[in-house]
C-alpha cells in the first residue's frame, strides 16, 4: 500500500499561514513527520484561497524538497501551477488530478508524459460524480483509452473512483468498492487505483475508525494507493496488516514495526 501523506495542504490553517508568511517551518515539520509516519509520497496543495497559486506551488515544492527525499504528489486544478511544480521536482511526481473531461485530459496526459509523472484520473466529468459503479467504470475506461492514445505507460495511470462522506452519501461506498475491483480488469497491465481516504469520514463523528475500516475494505478490492493521514498510527497498522492478509508482503513477527519504520532504514 502506497501512502500519500495529505497534510501539506493550504486547507489546514498552519499551512495556509506558512504560505502567506513564506515561513517554511510548518511545511517542513509536516514533511518530516509524515516521512517518519511512513508516507511514500507527500501531497502538495496550496489550498483554495491562495492568490498566487503558481508561486505558492513552486515555493511549497522547494521548501518540502529541502528536508525530504520523498517524491511529491502535486495537487491542484490549475495545470500551470502543476507544470511549474513539476519542473522543480527531483523525483518523478504524481499529478493530482484530472477528470475524464476531454479538454482536461488533452492537457493533463501530455503533461504527465513530458515530465515522466504519474497522473490521477478521476472517474467524473463536468457533470459531477456518478452515482453507481457502472458510470464510474465508463469514465475509468475513457481514462485507460486516453493513456493508450497519449502513450502514457499504464502503470503511470492512477484511477480515483471518488469516495464521498459516509454521512451524506452512504450509498456510494459499495459502488466505489465494486469499481475498484473492476478497474483491474480494464487493461493488462492494469492501471493503479487511489482514493482520498479521509473523504469517507468528512464531518463524521468517529473519523479514524471509518478511515481504517474503509482502507481495509478498499485494499481487499485491490486499492494500490491512498491519500491519507500518515500520522494515524493505527491506520498504518491496518495497512500493514491488510498487506499481510492479502499476501502482498511476507509475514514476520515485526511486520507492523517494519512497515512503520521503512522510511528510516
Amino acid at each position, binding site marked *: 500500500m502506497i501512502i500519500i501523506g495529505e497534510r501539506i495542504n493550504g486547507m489546514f490553517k498552519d499551512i495556509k499561514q506558512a504560505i502567506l508568511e513564506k515561513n517554511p517551518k510548518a511545511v517542513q515539520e509536516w514533511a518530516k513527520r509524515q516521512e517518519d509516519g511512513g508516507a511514500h509520497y507527500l501531497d502538495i496543495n496550496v489550498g483554495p484561497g491562495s492568490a498566487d497559486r503558481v508561486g505558492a506551488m513552486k515555493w511549497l515544492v522547494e521548501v518540502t524538497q529541502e528536508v525530504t527525499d520523498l517524491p511529491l504528489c502535486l495537487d491542484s486544478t490549475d495545470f500551470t501551477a502543476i507544470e511549474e511544480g513539476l519542473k522543480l521536482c527531483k523525483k518523478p511526481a504524481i499529478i493530482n488530478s484530472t477528470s475524464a473531461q476531454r479538454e482536461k485530459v488533452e492537457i493533463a496526459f501530455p503533461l504527465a508524459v513530458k515530465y515522466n509523472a504519474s497522473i490521477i484520473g478521476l472517474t467524473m466529468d463536468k457533470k459531477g460524480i456518478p452515482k453507481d459503479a457502472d458510470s464510474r467504470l465508463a469514465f475509468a475506461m475513457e481514462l485507460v483509452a486516453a493513456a493508450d492514445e497519449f502513450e502514457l505507460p499504464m502503470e503511470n495511470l492512477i484511477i480515483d473512483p471518488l469516495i464521498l462522506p459516509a454521512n451524506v452519501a452512504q450509498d456510494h461506498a459499495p459502488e466505489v468498492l465494486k469499481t475498484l475491483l473492476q478497474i483491474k480488469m480494464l487493461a493488462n497491465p492494469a492501471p493503479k487505483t487511489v482514493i482520498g481516504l479521509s473523504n469517507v469520514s468528512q464531518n463524521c463523528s468517529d473519523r479514524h475508525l471509518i478511515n481504517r475500516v474503509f482502507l481495509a475494505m478498499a485494499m481487499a478490492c485491490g486499492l494500490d494507493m491512498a491519500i491519507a493521514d500518515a500520522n494515524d498510527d493505527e491506520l498504518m497498522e491496518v495497512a500493514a496488516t491488510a498487506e499481510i492478509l492479502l499476501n502482498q508482503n511476507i509475514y514476520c513477527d515485526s511486520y507492523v*514495526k517494519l512497515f512503520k519504520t521503512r522510511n528510516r532504514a
Partner: protein
Amino acid sequence: MAVAILKDRNPSKVLEVTIGATKEQGGTRSHTITVGGDSALPFMHFEGSIPNRPVIAMEIQDRIPKWNDSLKSELGDVWGNPTEWAQKCVEDFGANLIYLKLDGSHPDEENYSPDKCAQTVKSVLEAVSVPLIVCGCDVEEKDNEVLPLVAEAAAGENLLIGSAEQDNYKTLTAACMVHKHSIIARSPLDINICKQLNILITEMNLPSDRIIIDPAIGGLGYGIEYAYSILERARLGALQGDKMLSMPIIATIGYESWKTKEASVSIDDYPNWGQQVERGILWEAVTATSLLQAGVHILLLRHPKTVQLVQNTIDELMKPNQF
C-alpha cells in the same frame, strides 16, 4: 510472426555481500568474493542482471570427520590436518572459498577449547589466501564461547561466521560488529522466521549487506522442495523490494546430501542402486544444481568431483540468454 517474449521488470534486487578483506581493507586475503546483486529470477539474464557468479565453498573440519568411504578415498590423506585439507581444496579442486566447520569443538566429541579453535582458524587463514567461512558445532553454549574468540583472533578478515538463530543471535552479531565480520542468519525452513531474524540482527546495527541467509535446506529426497519454495519466495520478495529478505543465500548441501541413506549405503545392501561412490557424488551434485537454480549464492560442498560437476553447471548457467 516473431514471438514476443514477456519480460518481468523488477523494482529491486538482491543485496550484494562481500566476504573477505584484502590487506588494504584490514585483512590478509589475496582477494574478496562478492555474491548477490541479482535483479532477476535465477539466471534469467534477459530480465535483469546477474552480476556475480554463484560460488562454491568446500567444507573442511578441524577433526577427522565421520564421513563415508567415497569422501575418504579423495580426502582421507589430509583429514586431521585442516591447513593441508584447505590447501588441497583450493589448489587441487578449485574451491572459491573454504568452509571451516568447527565440529571438533562439540562437547560430546573432541570438545576442543575456544583457544584451540581460534588457533585452527588462524592457521587456515595462513595456509590459504581465499576468503573463509567459519561455523561452530551448533551447540549454542559452546558456539557462544568459541565464535567470539574466533572473531577476535581473525579481526578485520571479514570472515563469514555462522550461525545466528532466532533464539541465539546476540552474541555472534555483537562479535561480528566489533571485529568486522559478516554473519550467517539461519532459520529452520521458515520464511517468516528468516525475515524476523534479519530484522533482529539489523536492529543491533549490523548492516544488512553483511548478512547471508541460511534457510536450512533439505537434501534431494528429504524436503528439497520445501527449500525450493522458501528460496523462491525470498527471491520474489527481494525483487519486489522486501529489504529484509534481500540477502544472498548459503546452503549446506554437502552436509544434507551425504547424511542421506542413498548417498551412503553400499551396493551390497541395495544391488539395484548402483555403486555408492557415484551415487553419493550424484546425490550431492543434483541437490546442488537444483538449489542453484532456485537461487543459492554460496554452495557448501564436500566431494571434489561434485565441485567439478557443479562448476561446469555454473559455467553454463552464467552464459547470457538474451531474447
